[in-house]
């Protein structure tokens, strides 16, 4: 069996309306993003024969197919939290390689802000080990888990509250150059440090935004991609895993599934961390960027805070990270993974205007799901 590396390409990407979209449903936003991504690719709806989406409803992919009027040949509603869309991309590449579909649409939509759907306790789901053993202790889900990772990181490496805030400052610097970003006003360290603590050590300012929004990505064979509207962006490497579901079952608070998926995705791509030009790491919380940089091999354990403080991930730095402003400042409709792919593709197409990373030829996207439970890494590149 040949590797899927370099055999498939992303040919269309788009966001739906973002921010506050009170007159639309989650599925509307998935449809809107899908139609925009088709236009971006120069494809028509009838050419889509694979549908990948999740969290719209119990039968998400059926629902989206019905809304689009498509009778698809391949359906996937896999749900593993915010990294679901990186997983969808990997699954779509495999399905195309196997001849089960030719052109796949990966789509997402959420109106969590307008519906006020976000709750402190999160999703208290029946039938889980958390429901049997953990929810009775009233953890805030997911923030309390990320807070315990941050506390352990601070304890082990001497990471400070200012180090965490530094991640949010960099995100805002990038967002200030993105017209689609929800928060673009300049931010100061003092403002961040004055933000109230929710689950120590994490403050409101350490948490991603709560917005509405959707996105879509279209993937097809490289052969077909060459005849479409945009420069094909090759899928060079993919990898996914899960390490736990309930909080108590995490194997290690600082060594994550990202270490495994990063290594495997880079190996599939035939690249090393030093070969990556632009990085997108799902920043549900500020701590995610620090542990992500360390587990993915961009920094040694414990060195990410000084790496960020030195400006390496900021505009003009040697490792531009979350160049659209991330979940912290650009948008966060609840599952951010698809927006990592959208921004990486635009950077590789050189379509990012003021925030464009010069000569970006390789990108790494790393998304997480749940409470650092699921991990998926995608490496993209241009030929």
């Amino acid at each position, binding site marked *: 069996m040949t590797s899927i590396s370099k055999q498939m390409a992303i040919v269309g990407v788009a966001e739906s309306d973002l921010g506050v979209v009170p007159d639309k449903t989650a599925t509307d936003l998935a449809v809107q993003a899908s139609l925009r991504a088709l236009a971006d690719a120069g494809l028509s709806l009838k050419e889509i024969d694979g549908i990948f989406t999740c969290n719209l409803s119990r039968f998400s992919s059926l629902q989206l197919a019905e809304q689009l009027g498509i009778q698809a040949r391949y359906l996937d509603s896999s749900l593993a939290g915010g990294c679901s869309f990186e997983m969808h991309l990997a699954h779509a590449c495999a399905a195309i390689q196997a001849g089960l579909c030719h052109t796949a649409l990966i789509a997402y939509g959420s109106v969590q802000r307008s519906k006020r759907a976000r709750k402190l306790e999160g999703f208290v789901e029946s039938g889980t080990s958390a429901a049997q053993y953990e929810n009775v202790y009233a953890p805030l889900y997911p923030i309390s888990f990320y807070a315990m990772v941050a506390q352990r990181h601070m304890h082990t490496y001497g990471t400070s509250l200012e180090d965490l805030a530094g991640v949010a400052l960099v995100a805002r610097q990038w967002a200030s150059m993105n017209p689609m970003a929800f928060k673009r006003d300049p931010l100061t360290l003092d403002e961040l440090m004055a933000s109230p603590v929710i689950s120590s050590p994490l403050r409101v300012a350490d948490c991603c935004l709560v917005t509405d929004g959707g996105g879509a990505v279209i993937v097809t064979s490289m052969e077909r991609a060459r005849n479409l509207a945009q420069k094909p962006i090759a899928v060079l490497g993919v990898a996914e895993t899960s390490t736990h579901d309930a909080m*108590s079952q*995490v194997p290690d608070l600082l060594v994550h599934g990202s270490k495994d998926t990063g290594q495997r995705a880079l190996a599939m791509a035939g690249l090393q961390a030093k070969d990556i030009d632009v990085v997108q790491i799902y920043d549900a919380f500020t701590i995610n960027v620090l542990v992500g940089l360390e587990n993915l091999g961009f920094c040694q354990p414990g060195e990410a805070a000084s790496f960020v403080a030195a400006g390496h991930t900021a505009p003009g730095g040697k490792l531009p990270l979350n160049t659209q402003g991330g979940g912290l400042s650009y948008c966060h409709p609840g599952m951010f993974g698809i927006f990592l792919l959208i921004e990486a593709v635009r950077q590789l197409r050189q379509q990012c205007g003021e925030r464009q990373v010069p000569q970006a030829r390789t990108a790494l996207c790393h998304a997480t799901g749940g409470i650092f439970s699921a991990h998926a890494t995608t490496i993209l590149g241009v030929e």
Partner: protein
Amino acid sequence: MSLVRPLPETDGLAAHYWASAANEKLVIQRCDSCAQYQHYGRLMCVHCGAGTLQWVDTQGEGAVLSCTTVYRSPYSDVQTPYTLALIRLDEGVTLLSHLLGGDAGGNYCDARVQLEFSPLRDGFKLPVFRLLESGEPA
């Protein structure tokens, strides 16, 4: 704001765990084949895959892997601030629990703790952990 915290779901092997807790015993499983421990109860050993496991009482001592103090409670019957902790028992298993005896927002990573039981409604008792010695943050 009248949401109260959910009681544990006690189906399957969780029934024995919570019945034991009501009698002030914290139970975990030990594998007959590899002698390793696991929390929570399962039909098989996650270490070696064997299917014969015994319930054993823990010694009730361990250390804090990490902790976090919550300042916004989702539930009317859980008063803030309260501190959650991942506790690594000396048997080598980890539980999510509450940490007692410290300052709100303190760092108690690696601090030693001792098991207690805290009464809840409907006959449930919650395994919780109290800091040993001083409550000074690490």
